[in-house]
């Protein structure tokens, strides 16, 4: 919600943010420019980065093999800047559907997908996804066939996860860019599938 030009007193926590930042800058531990630059870089990271990885994997079987073997190295080969990311990519197939959760906090592949949505960090998602994934996915509108195995990945330590969704039917001959536009953030978390090509 953008500021509307009205004076609003800072909340306790907003006050703490301003306070801490000013103290750290005064002590030479941070500069305002560094903070602004980092905010800009973080804001520029959108799910489109992850979508590029997915569409490249759909187009290039050799890249896909590398990606599933070592997600970090494959993304670096693609020229993506992925500071400190240790990536595991898990592939959806007709037999296997993958979904990601961090039950302990909110671990998420931010450098590929941007900041996580509120619901990913919510109590209900974090508590239920490991225990009743099919019910949670159904709430997201995704019905997974009983014969399909669901793999829930709890991102508890240093690795970060990206789901490689299945390529939608009816996209033969599409360019990488056109394919990438079908890949949604939620399909890379595993609570949705990519958009279908429009008829």
């Amino acid at each position, binding site marked *: *919600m953008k*500021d509307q030009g009205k*004076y*609003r*007193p*800072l*909340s306790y*926590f*907003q*006050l*703490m*943010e*301003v*306070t*801490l*930042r*000013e*103290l*750290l800058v005064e*002590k030479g*531990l*941070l500069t305002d420019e*560094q*903070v602004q630059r*980092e*905010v800009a870089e*973080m*804001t520029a990271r959108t799910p489109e980065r992850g979508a590029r990885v997915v569409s490249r994997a759909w187009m290039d079987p050799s890249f896909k093999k590398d990606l599933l073997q070592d997600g970090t190295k494959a993304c670096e080969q693609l020229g993506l800047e992925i500071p400190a990311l240790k990536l595991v990519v898990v592939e959806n197939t007709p037999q296997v559907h993958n979904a990601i*959760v961090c*039950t*302990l*906090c*909110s671990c998420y592949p931010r450098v590929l997908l941007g*900041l996580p*949505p*509120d*619901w990913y*960090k*919510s*109590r*209900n*998602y*974090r*508590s*239920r996804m*490991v*225990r009743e994934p099919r019910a*949670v996915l159904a*709430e*997201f509108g995704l019905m997974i066939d009983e014969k399909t195995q669901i793999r829930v990945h*709890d991102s508890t330590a240093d690795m970060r996860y990206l789901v490689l969704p299945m390529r939608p039917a009816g996209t033969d001959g599409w360019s990488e860019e056109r394919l990438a536009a079908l890949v949604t953030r939620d399909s890379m978390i595993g609570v949705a599938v990519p958009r279908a090509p429009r008829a």
Partner: protein
Amino acid sequence: MIERSHHDMGGLPGGKVERTEHEYADWERRVDAMSWLMRAHGITVDERRRHIEQLPPDDYERMTYYERWIVSLAQAALQRGLITSEELARKMVEVESRGSR
């Protein structure tokens, strides 16, 4: 209960997932940015997580995500001696008296 930390919630009962999203406010992005930048001064994500986990359960539930983060960052800086409580106190009073947005 002490044997199971409040944040360790995998498998506990829960309600419907509210698919809320919000555009992050500038102050929230700055909290994220500062947390990342303060790694250069030794503050690890692990310490910050510990501080979050040590929040009283009611506060953990009541606070928003970045409210927990700013408090944990301040706790970590305090514990490491990068700031003191007195410095925080005086600066908070000063900032508040400016009437900043």
